[in-house]
Structures are given as C-alpha cells and as structure tokens.
C-alpha cells in the first residue's frame, strides 16, 4: 500500500489497529481461540463470536456485531414517513409486518390520529400472523442447530400457509409494507378469514408435531435442559425481552402490560412463562406462544368489526413536532421506535430499539463455562435475527 501523506498514514495505522483488536487470536497456554463466524452456519447471518476455549470448554466469549450494518436509523432521516415503513420491515425479516406497527403507532401518536377499529383488528391479526411466521421458523431452526434436520423442513412447509395468508392480504410475503399512518393500505379480500382458519389448523398440528418430534425427544432435552440458564434478575439486568425473558420466569408481556394501539384487551389469552430459564424453557415458551397466537387470531377473526380501515389523514403527511416512543411485543421481544419530529416530511431522528440487539448482550455472560456444542444451542435458543441486531 502506497502511503503518501501523513494523515493517510495515520488513518491506515488506525484502521489496522482497529482490525487487530478483533482479529487477534490469543494462543495461550490454557487453550485456543475459536472464531465462530462471521461466516458460520450457526450464526444464520454474519454474527461473529470469538470464543476462548480450554479444551472444549469456553473460557470467555465475545459477540462481535456490525458485519451487516445497513444504517437504517440514518436512512429514515431522509425518507418521508410513508417511505420509512418499507425500509423498517426489513429489520426483522421473518416477522416483517410486526416491525412496521410500532413505528406507525408512534407516528400516529404524534399526529394524534387513531386507526379505526377494523384497522386495529386487522393489524393485530397480521401482527400475530407474523409472530407465527417468525417463531415457527425458530422451532425448526432450534432443532436443526442441535442436529435434527427434519423439523426445519416442517417449519418451512407449514409457515408457507401463514405466509400465503399474509401475501393474500398485503401482497408481499416477506415485506408487506401494509401499515399506514391512520390505518391500513387495503381491506381484507373475500374468503380470507376462512382460509386463515385453515392455516391456523395447519399451524396447530405443526405445533403438535414439534412437540412430539423435538420437545419430547430425550436427546433434545438432554441437549437443552440446564444449558444456558439465565435467572430472572440477570435477564432483566441485561435488558432481555420477549420469550427469552418469560422463559426466565419473569411474567412480563407488552401485549398485556403496556399495550398501545392493538386490540389484545379484546381477547382472552394467557402469557406463558417457564421458571427454568434454560434453552429448553425458551423453546417451550415459544412453542406455547405460537399456540397462543393461533388462539388470539382465532378469536379476533370472529369479531372483526365493520367500518372503514383508514382514519382521516392528509394526503401529504407532515408529523407535528414532538417526540414519541412506542414499543410492541414483537416476535423477538420488545421492539420500540423513538421518533423525534420537527414538523417536517421526514422524521428528525429515529432510534430503533430492536429486540435481538439487547438479547445478544447477554451472550458473554451466558456463554461462560459451557461446551462448544452448547454455544450453538444457546445461541439458537436466544433466537436472534441478524437484521434485527445490526439494522
């Protein structure tokens, strides 16, 4: 590398030093450093875990993120409010509709509009459908990370029916971009409710299959029971949320405890918790939540009120100056948008609190003194989506 000026030289040295910090591999007397990722089958994406090993035992592990940083918080500052939704549903790409909702709710709060009831109902249904689409894949993926190949195919197979329903109403399988400030883009097509019930039946039988194939399997239990135990207070202090927190015995669910704009108070449902806090508990809680989501949707489908789906909003949306933070219970955990508006067409600043990013912060704590195979099962049970970490 030819270095001309002094400032370039300094910049080069600084970049080399920055690389060296993460690339250094300490071969101590006690063990070796194992680099899981950024290209590794278990990290489903480009997460990198640097683990110092003693034999097969992990002495210390550090997650290194940012290999897929896409700068969404900055991008939103140069997009108008309707344009933002199409960006942010790429954050957690498996449950994308759920990403749009908190942002739209925050914007609605600033504009002081409220979506009509029919829109709220459909929003909640789609929200829960995307939860199923997301968690369903977790159920298969967790099994594949501990070595069973078949469950993930069942997950993809039955998730297809849920995605079909999402596509039928929003037009997009992965990136619906269906939520609008003040309501929804369109209403449900004819026959959708009946078809959705069919898809829910499919999901319920999928949950039963998972229970027989994975959850009840003694090998799976041996691999996950008492592995990666996170006590409730530790989970809270690391800012865990969602099913990871509930699996540690903390009975906290934004849908029930801090619900904004969605109609969870209209249905009869239950928040599942598990006292153990191990990998098995996390799988168990998510399995129960998938069933519960089916139950919620089932009840909501029968009670959709009639009416408009769009409140009165101006054609060109200018959000009044102000700040709002809205969080929802996304498939991966608490997802919140802190929107600061200065009264322009675009948000002044958006801070995205994504669930996986906070959930990953516990890895150095929980990956201490485990075996290498357990790194994989613990990471899988914490369930992160790389887009949700790096944004």
């Amino acid at each position, binding site marked *: 590398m030819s270095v001309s000026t002094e400032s370039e030289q300094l910049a080069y040295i600084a970049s080399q030093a920055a690389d060296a910090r993460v690339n250094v591999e300490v071969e101590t007397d006690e063990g070796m450093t194992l680099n899981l990722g950024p290209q590794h089958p278990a990290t489903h994406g480009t997460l990198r875990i640097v683990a110092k090993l003693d034999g097969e035992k992990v002495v210390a592990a550090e997650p290194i993120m940012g290999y897929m940083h896409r700068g969404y918080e900055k991008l939103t500052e140069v997009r108008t409010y309707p344009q933002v939704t*199409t960006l942010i549903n790429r954050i957690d790409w498996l449950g994308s509709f759920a990403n749009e909702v908190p942002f739209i709710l925050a914007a609605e709060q600033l504009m002081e509009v409220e979506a009509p009831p029919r829109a709220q109902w459909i929003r909640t249904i789609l929200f829960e459908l995307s939860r199923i689409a997301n968690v369903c894949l977790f159920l298969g993926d967790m099994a594949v990370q501990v070595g069973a190949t078949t469950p993930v195919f069942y997950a993809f197979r039955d998730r297809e029916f849920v995605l079909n329903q999402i*596509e039928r109403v929003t037009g*997009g399988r992965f990136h619906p971009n269906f939520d609008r400030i003040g309501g929804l883009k369109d209403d*449900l097509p004819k026959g959708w409710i009946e078809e959705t019930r069919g898809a829910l039946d499919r999901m319920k039988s999928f949950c039963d299959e998972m229970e*027989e194939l994975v959850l*009840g399997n003694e090998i799976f*239990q041996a691999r996950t029971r008492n592995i990666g135990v996170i006590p409730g207070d530790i989970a809270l202090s690391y800012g865990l949320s969602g099913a990871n927190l509930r699996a540690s015995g903390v009975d906290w669910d934004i849908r029930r405890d801090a619900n904004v704009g969605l109609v969870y108070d209209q249905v009869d449902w239950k928040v599942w918790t598990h006292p153990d806090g191990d990998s098995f508990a996390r799988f168990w809680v998510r399995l129960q939540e998938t069933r519960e989501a089916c139950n919620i949707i089932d009840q909501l489908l029968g009670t959709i009120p009639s009416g*408009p789906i769009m409140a009165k909003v101006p054609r060109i949306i200018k959000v009044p100056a102000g700040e709002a933070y809205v969080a929802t219970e996304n498939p991966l955990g608490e997802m919140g948008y802190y929107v600061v508006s200065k009264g322009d067409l675009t948000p002044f600043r958006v801070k995205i609190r994504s669930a996986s990013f906070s959930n990953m912060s516990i890895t150095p704590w929980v990956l201490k003194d485990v075996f290498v195979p357990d790194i994989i099962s613990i990471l899988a049970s914490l369930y992160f989506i790389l887009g949700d970490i790096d944004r």
Partner: protein
Amino acid sequence: MSQLPGILKGLKVTFRTMIKTLFPGGLLKPIPKPSEGALTVQYPHVKEAPPARARGVIALHEGNCTACMLCARECPDWCIYIEGHKELAPPRREGGKPRQVNALDRFDIDFSLCMFCGICVEVCPFDALFWTPEYEFSELKLADMLHDKERLGEWMETVPDFEEYEDGSEQKVRKVPR
C-alpha cells in the same frame, strides 16, 4: 428404559409424513404418488399462482399516465425515471380549443433497485400503475432489469381484477382499465 417413548414418537412423526407423502390417497390406495403428496412443486414445470394482490412486477397503463412525477418523487429508492413533454391534442368537441396534454416520452423502472414497496402504485392519482403477480422477469444482465414503458405496458395484460372485499368492509372495489 423411560427414555424410549419420546424417541419413538419422533420416529412415528417422520414415518407418518413419509407415508403421507408417498401415498397421498391413504394406505387403502397404496399407489405411490409423491408428486401429489409433497408440498413442494417442481417449479419450472409447475407454476405457482400467487394471489391477485401479490406484488410481482409493476405494469403501466400508458394512456392514463400524465407524467405527473408523483410516483418518481415518492419512490424511496428513486428507481423510476420519467420524461415527458406537453403537446397540443385535438379538441374534444368540434370547434373547441386544442387541449394541452402531457405526453410520456420515457417511463422506466429499474427493477434492480426497486424494493417492491408499492408506494408508486399507491400514490398514482390516475390509475396508471398496477401490480401484477407475474414474477418471471429475471435477466442475465443487471442493465436489462431496467424496464421501459413498452415492457411495462406489456405487463398490463397480466394484471388481474381487484378482489372482492370481506364482509363488513366499506372499501369500494376498483376497476382495472383495459
């Protein structure tokens, strides 16, 4: 030996699925027909039919477009290129003044940039843009992903009618201009 049941249950599930896939007619009609039992389809031979709302590719109804640039301006990644000019059209009624209309010179969408968000279709005030569920438009070269207005106009034939709405809706079913 309390270990056995869970393991055997798993074996049962996989075996049952295999039988279901192999003999979709049930065991009473043991004729192997995996192509019916499997949930996958052999794509190039069998095509999936996406729902009417599916966002496959954007079609342009050229006659309705007034080159108003709304779609190009609202597009989050600026992948629509429009050029137009004003020209005089013959008057509607005999003896009237010639009208000024916007003629479209260029309407290109770069599908290598497009995020398929559908904002352009939504903001179009003149019903000129439509989604079609057609999805086979991949090209060997990136540059060929830039569809001009003729190509976009061809997609117009594949645009399905808008679906009826579910009961209780107050939305009006729109018509696709043919």
